[in-house]
């Protein structure tokens, strides 16, 4: 059996998982919030893009609007609501984003309904032929975007003042505050970055799979799985784990008896990852 087409198609989705995993991780490292609403935030943006394209606005505008809306939602929550839970357990702060996810799902349900749609970019029709397999430009863009973005974030964290502040917050929130790190500003910046990531991830997944509120909301699960494999710390491991999860999911498609269960791949990988890595990653989870 020729697995190559499945690997290629998995790379596209894997790139989205990688992008999302890194987006989650940036926020988690800087603020200690695991954002369950990541997928929902992206889904809102993707719906906006779909709506604008229905109204015959240019593609570039639709994409820009989508990322802006996702970023705005993330910013609003991060700036005004998340601080209300700042000094609570990590898990309570994560559950807070669950509330945001529920709210966004409801919003999308009321405005757009649950009818599965598909976002179509012109790049879907353009393709390269690689080893006899079509690789659409959308997938190439997803892959390039993932690499560029992980590189960009690494540079940001490593060389800029904001990155230094973020790393300081990740290490010790209270100590950073004493040393004069502006916590609200740094955290808000992290929320904005994660919003941009969510917007891009939502757009790509809505194009590669389908545009549906609850479906896109659960984009967060493979992303969390990737972040856990990166021990909630390493950006590059998270990115590669995301790619790997996407490819693994796609590779199971041609195997008949397992195919109906293949959408459980991220869950199974994440379960195993939590059980094996959970104890070692505990340092990253110490109460902040």
């Amino acid at each position, binding site marked *: 059996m020729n697995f190559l087409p499945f690997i290629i198609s998995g790379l596209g989705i894997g790139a989205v998982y990688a992008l999302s995993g890194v987006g989650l991780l940036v926020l988690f490292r800087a603020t200690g919030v*695991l954002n369950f609403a990541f997928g929902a935030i992206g889904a809102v943006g993707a719906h906006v893009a779909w709506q604008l394209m229905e109204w015959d606005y240019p593609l570039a505008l639709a994409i820009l609007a989508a990322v802006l809306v996702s970023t705005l939602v993330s910013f609003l929550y991060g700036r005004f*609501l998340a601080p*209300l*839970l700042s000094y*609570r*357990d*990590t*898990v*309570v702060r*994560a*559950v*807070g984003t*669950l*509330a*945001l*996810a*529920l*709210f*966004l*799902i*409801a*919003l*999308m*349900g*009321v405005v757009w309904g649950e009818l599965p749609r598909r976002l179509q970019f012109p790049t879907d029709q353009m393709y390269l032929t690689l080893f006899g397999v079509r690789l659409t430009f959308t997938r190439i863009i997803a892959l390039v975007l993932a690499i560029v973005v992980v590189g960009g974030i690494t540079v940001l964290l490593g060389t800029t003042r904001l990155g230094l502040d973020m790393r300081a917050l990740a290490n010790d929130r209270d100590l950073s505050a004493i040393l004069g790190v502006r916590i609200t500003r740094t955290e808000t910046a992290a929320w904005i970055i994660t919003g941009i990531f969510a917007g891009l991830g939502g757009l790509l997944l809505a194009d590669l799979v389908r545009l549906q509120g*609850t479906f896109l*909301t*659960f984009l967060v*699960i493979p992303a*969390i*799985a990737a972040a*856990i494999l990166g021990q909630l710390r390493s950006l590059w491991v998270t990115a590669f784990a995301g790619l790997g999860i996407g490819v693994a999911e796609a590779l199971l498609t041609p195997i008949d008896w397992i195919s*109906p*269960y293949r*959408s*459980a791949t*991220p*869950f*199974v990988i*994440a*379960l195993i990852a*939590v*059980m094996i890595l*959970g*104890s070692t990653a*505990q340092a990253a*989870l110490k109460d902040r």
Partner: protein
Amino acid sequence: MTAQNQTLARPMASPSAIRVPREVLVIPVVMAVFTAAVALLANSFWLTAATSAVALSLSVTGLAILYGQLGLVSLCQFALVGVGGWVTLRIGHAWHPPFEVSMLSGGIVAALVGLIFGIPALRLRGLYLALVTLMLAGGFQTIIGAWGFPDGGPGFLGRADGAGRAMLSRPDLAQDSVPYFVYVSIVATIGLVISQWHKLARPGRAWALIRKGEHVAIASGVNVLTYKAWAFALSGFLAGIAGALLAGNVGQLDGRAFTAFESLNLFALAVVGGVYNWYGALIAGLLLRAVPALLTDLGIDGYVTIGIFGVALFQALATAPAGIAGQISGLIARLTRKGQKP
């Protein structure tokens, strides 16, 4: 008064183990009044909603034990309800035992499943349990989507095609919808009493210590592992029973209704209803079933409910950690105190 104070203070108030404390006695009384009111006043539409609301409140009680007593977030409770329902239907269709037998086996299997997935959490803290259980809920969604619920067909999965579909019969005692509602209420009352007793007695004290800090608990001679495992098993058991009662209500279950999203919803409502008071679970169950029924009655989009739940969850987390039940109990406390001091 914080929640921990409430849970810690009660056992001290009733040191005698033999005397039935007032906090337990009040449950059957309130439930009897509630059941009588619904059975007499509700039409069939509301009766169905109330039956599943009461059944679900049993599973919320399980969540309340984990979150309220131990601070553990479990996001797979509705999946465990599904496990209980699946086992009940499977056993009911295979051997046609009395309903109670199917129901208990559903509860026991769900308890085992809850225990198996609680084991990694015995050593891990907060966020990781939430993640493990979220993955479990997602995995269950995939499996139940592929399997469906048994409806009298052959084989392990028990799926019948088209004409051969059978319904699970209700318990012999309660064939009609009103007696079945009373039956569900009685089972739920027993479940609520059991969990309330746990909170007041030895396990509750152990859980309160574990919540304060595991080192504190170990130093005080509490067997942390056993009591945590017991909490998971009890919570899973209550979810399983709830699933069995849901299966008995309509006679079958729909695999598409058991998404991971429903588990998130259930948890959100457990927090909104209030996890520190027993009637928080009842409030949560009613919100979960009666509010959508009400909105449908009024012709409002069902998604509005989810939005309301989302806002209510955040509000509860940020300003009222004890939920609606906590606010009610605060109100009652203030009123009675005023009554005592003229």
